[in-house]
């Protein structure tokens, strides 16, 4: 199962442990991981479902380029990491 982890910059606001989730796409993986911490959704995504502009999402250490189209296929061993981008703020 894909592994999803949120950086401490996020978990200091909303505690959420690293987890493995049943998911075929990045969108599904994020949605499943938000089930453990529902408030995390609004920290990572805006109300239109896009990744916030000062948040960065990596799949296997490669940052995703499209903040809107999150239907990126995930393999069973893929690792998703969500961090606070070093912008704005």
């Amino acid at each position: 199962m894909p592994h999803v982890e949120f950086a401490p910059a996020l978990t200091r606001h909303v505690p959420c442990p690293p987890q493995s989730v049943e998911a075929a796409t990045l969108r599904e993986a994020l949605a499943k991981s938000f089930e453990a911490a529902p408030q995390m959704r609004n920290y990572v995504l805006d109300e239109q479902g896009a990744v916030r502009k000062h948040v960065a999402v990596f799949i296997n250490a490669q940052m995703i380029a499209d903040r809107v189209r999150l239907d990126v296929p995930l393999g069973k061993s893929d690792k998703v990491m969500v961090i606070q981008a070093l912008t704005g703020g």
Partner: protein
Amino acid sequence: MANPTIWVGTRKGLFAVKRGASGWKLGAPHFAGEPVSQFARDASTGACYAALRLGHFGVKLWKSDSGDGEWKEVAAPAFPPKPTEGEWADDPAAWTVDMVWGLEAAAGTLWAGCTPAGLFKSTDGAASWQLVDKLWLRPERKEWLGGGYDIPGIHSIAVDPRDARHVTIAISCGGVWQTRDGGDTWANTSRGMTAEFMPPERRDDGNIQDVHRIVQCAAQPEVLWAQNHAGIYRSVDGGSQWHRIPAPQPTDFGFAVAVHPRDPETAWFVPAHSDAQRIPVDGRMVATRTRDGGMSFETLAEGLPSRDAYHLVYRHGLSVGADGNTLAMGSTTGGLWASEDAGQSWQCLSRDLPPIAVVRVD
């Protein structure tokens, strides 16, 4: 006021400045390090609300049942999904809340004005929010301009104490709007205002006025005061007609206005040099006060820096308490002053705070 509190929302936290027997005490901030864009207290329940604008993670709203106790995160205003077809599919505005710019609690309803210029209401203590779509979907919104921020926003919300369904809002830059049915229908009520910075053909257009701030007299709600980008205005008929007030000394440019809760003739302002120089005239910080409805003004300087001062008091940086005597004033460069004699004299509480977005005397 017995033991008043000055709530101070800053770029780096929310301070509850309390008046005790030995004077004002600043104390440590709530939300240390986080940007607080607005604060409101529901007088009927005592609940306090703080709106945060996290640089990375969006707008958040926190609530405390008493202000002294524990804060918990509650729902923040949020837009519904942006339409993918129809008139608004190509709306250039992002349907994402960037900042809570105005926040008022009255008669069991919480109102939030935002950038972009969406108005939201909550009737369950911020457990949920509804976009006031009858305002958001008005075609006039396409004409609104940014003012203060790149995108238009709602900064002032005045709820009529006689009828909570009657709400007056102001938009930079979209003029003054009113509803008398809780938000189902709206009318622009900016007649008499002039925007000198606009092309001549549009200067009297109510839909583009840059109203920096409006306030309503609690005891006589038909009296409204406005500090506009272009001058000071007053209405004595609930906003049907606005009257330009002759410019006081040193200027009539500024952002903030406060009105006495019982005397509609008395209002306070904090003048800046001009649009092009948003600093005190000659480095001398003053407030101004009228006690005769704007026919004359006094310059209030006692206790304020008399030289080398470059403070700007923004839209929500001036507040008067329910007694009409206790005032607070906070600047974008972190100066905080209080007055306990209706502005006649001021005491500096700090010159070292983060940029101040909002003060509320409670």
